[in-house]
């Protein structure tokens, strides 16, 4: 069982003051009014109980044994690798049933989008580097940022971008901007050294 937590100071709000149907409750610690939008039965559940111990369940005659614990009866199949597994090796991930090995593998490798915890936005980074010299104060940094932007954009052309699907226009635009800057830089350098334009 838990208490609702104040959004301002993280202290517990008294249960007797918390409106079950939603409404305002003033935090006794910081005196700020919190609005409760919805409460769910999980609030009343006790989470600190130990999981039940599973009884021995050896496979019977003609029954499949667990791939990882051969002394246990297989009850389900891993949705990822397809091996037969017993209850002790089963993990539920949303609507999927996975074996613990696959769960660890997917979480460590981050191959499945459903398991990824973060992604670097290389397209935004390349575009930011390409746009940085346009700020008046630090325009000379284009000597470094333009090649870096081109390198990042081409190196990460096929890398996964945001989880929200989007095209490659940022990468393309970054390359275009950086190439323009490099061209201007070269023209300026040639003009300073050889004065071809007078």
């Amino acid at each position: 069982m838990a208490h609702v937590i104040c959004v301002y100071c993280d202290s517990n709000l008294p249960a007797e003051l918390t409106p079950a149907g939603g409404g305002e409750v003033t935090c006794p610690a910081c005196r700020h009014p919190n609005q409760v939008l919805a409460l769910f039965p999980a609030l009343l559940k006790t989470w600190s109980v130990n999981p039940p111990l599973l009884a021995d369940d050896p496979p019977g005659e003609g029954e499949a044994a667990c791939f990882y614990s051969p002394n246990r009866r297989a009850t389900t199949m891993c949705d990822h690798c397809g091996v037969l597994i017993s209850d002790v090796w089963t993990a539920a991930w949303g609507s999927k049933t996975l074996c613990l090995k696959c769960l660890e593998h997917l979480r460590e490798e981050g191959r499945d989008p459903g398991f990824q915890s973060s992604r670097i936005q290389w397209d935004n980074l390349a575009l930011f580097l390409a746009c940085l010299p346009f700020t008046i104060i630090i325009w000379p940094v284009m000597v470094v940022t333009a090649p870096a932007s081109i390198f990042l954009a081409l190196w990460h052309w096929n890398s996964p971008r945001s989880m929200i699907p989007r095209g490659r226009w940022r990468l393309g635009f970054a390359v275009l901007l950086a190439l323009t800057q490099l061209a201007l830089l070269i023209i300026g350098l040639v003009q300073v050294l050889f004065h071809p334009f007078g």
Partner: protein
Amino acid sequence: MKKTFGEYRYIAGSARVRGSVWEGADHLLYIETKGYPAACLESYRRIDYARVQAITYGRTSTWAWNLAWQILVTLACGFMVAQFWLKKEQWPAFFTGELGGSAVLLLPVVLLALIINGFRGPTCVCHIQTAVQSLRLKPVCRVRDAKKLASRIAAACQQHQGGGTVTQEQLLSIPAFDPGPFALQMKRPFIRTPALIWGFVLLLAGGCLAIAEPYVDSLPFFIADVIINLSGGTLLVVTRMRNARVMMAGILGSTLKAVTRNFVFGLLLSAGLYIYASITISQEMVSRGRAVQIDDEVTLSLLRWLSHASFDEIHVWAAVVMVVGGINVFLALLGLPFAFRPTPVAVPPPVPTNPPAANELQPPSLP
């Protein structure tokens, strides 16, 4: 921005700095973005509907503050635009000239910002609570979005938690919390330091100097203005940063936030003025037939130009300097009474008495 992808449906937020919240089949996806001005890293948090305990929000004063300054800027722009069209002779030239022209361009922008902010409604901080965390959903920053979030996922949460709702009787069955851990769990209150008082005093002095700056033609005055404003702003910004994890709500918290914004704006303004002065002096040197190079004479003439700058020379810049100074004075007067208010004395939590039983090891008696 897409409204659906895969199994997810959009609820709130954007692909930019704040991140976004998406409704999944059996969980809520919170995409948290880091990096400014563009998001450079996306972190994904998935909250199972079966684990959600509560959705709460608390109103913030950001909406009111934003409305206040947007209305002020809109009125000021409207006034200057009126002056620009009427061309009243009794007003200084910069009101009817460049400043009025700038206001004509600025007015539609601030008016649009005011309308958008007004329609989006009050701001809030929204939290979603599970057994292990109370997670702040940064993209849900408006009351309207928070209510929309609750209405969208409430049915799914109840379905995944076996149906049923929480009644007041069930809430009353939750045992009262122990005051000891409760006291420890609280964020400690902000302790007022002399740095806060000195910061506001310097800010007040600096603001007054900045207001007087366009009318005073003196190099020491200009240097004193820069040093005092920098010291006051830095003291207050550092105080705010050092106390980022303590409870600093209310007018003091809002004032320090506004001081930080004004300080950053003041720094940008100084950089802009410096560039403007450099360009002006370079043009003067070129017109006199001198090569542009940085030496002591140029540095001194740059400082002199900045200290001599008046309304007739820098026009709009002078007005902006005066506005920044005025905001500093206003914020200092707002924050000073709170800086002097004594900090409440912290009461330590009661220590439970737990004497050892007869068969337990007794502590050795000290001589």
